[in-house]
């Protein structure tokens, strides 16, 4: 096994970890926007 494997495993895992974090940031944003929408709907019903 050459050193390429260790480099790919290091850089690849880092890239995947950062991609997952960016996806969770987007999901958190979407969730927050949904909660705001629900509050607006509740206000409209009142």
């Amino acid at each position, binding site marked *: 096994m050459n050193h*390429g494997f*260790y480099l790919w495993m*290091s850089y690849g*895992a880092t890239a995947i970890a950062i991609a997952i*974090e960016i996806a969770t*940031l987007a999901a958190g944003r979407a969730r*927050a926007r949904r909660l705001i929408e629900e509050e607006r709907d509740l206000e409209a019903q009142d």
Partner: protein
Amino acid sequence: MNWFYFSSPSTFYRLAGWLSPWFFALAAILTAVGLYYGFVVAPTDAQQGEVYRVIFIHVPAAWMSMFIYFVMAAYSAASLTFNTRLGAMMARALAPTGALFTFVALWTGAFWGRPTWGTYWAWDARMTSELVLLFLYFGFIALANAFEDPRRGDRAAALLALIGLVNLPIIYFSVHWWNTLHQGSTVKLTGTSMHVAMLTGMLLMAFAFWMYSIGAALTRVRSIILERERRARWARSL
């Protein structure tokens, strides 16, 4: 400029929204230049060959794991002392990114250790204390979300963050205090023995991770602010 103006969640929400894309853009540019230095400009290491290039993410990630924890504890201290809502929200926003960089430092360390030390893992003082840091981040996140009332979660997690601060000097000085498998500091305030291109690549990546961390924390804190302030008029009018 009145800095207290930005301690209000509604004004900070807008400021964070304006700033975060700039930090992400800066992080992307610095990463591109840092990787160019790391893989093209920096020479092959005489002893380790190509595998030493893990250093361009391992060391910056390890630095960020400790630095983010310190900043998170500082925000926690501010939230406990001054009862500031935004301080607690910033501490919450930093924790997942700190955990990410701690994981990256441990993971890349394992894949650097195997070809150079002959093992992925050893219960060495530096590695073990870094693992404890990862558990502190997990504990902070779990504790912050364990309460129905988020303010109680903020206080409990802030206390844990402050107690966990004791681990930072242990991580940093572990290679001096104990005879460890992990090497000592390569970069010191007094200088370094690294080749200038290697050092440049590593510092560029460290700044890239720093900018990314700020961008990620600002983006996350906006979601936290929106969730907490969703009943406020300003949030509903967005």
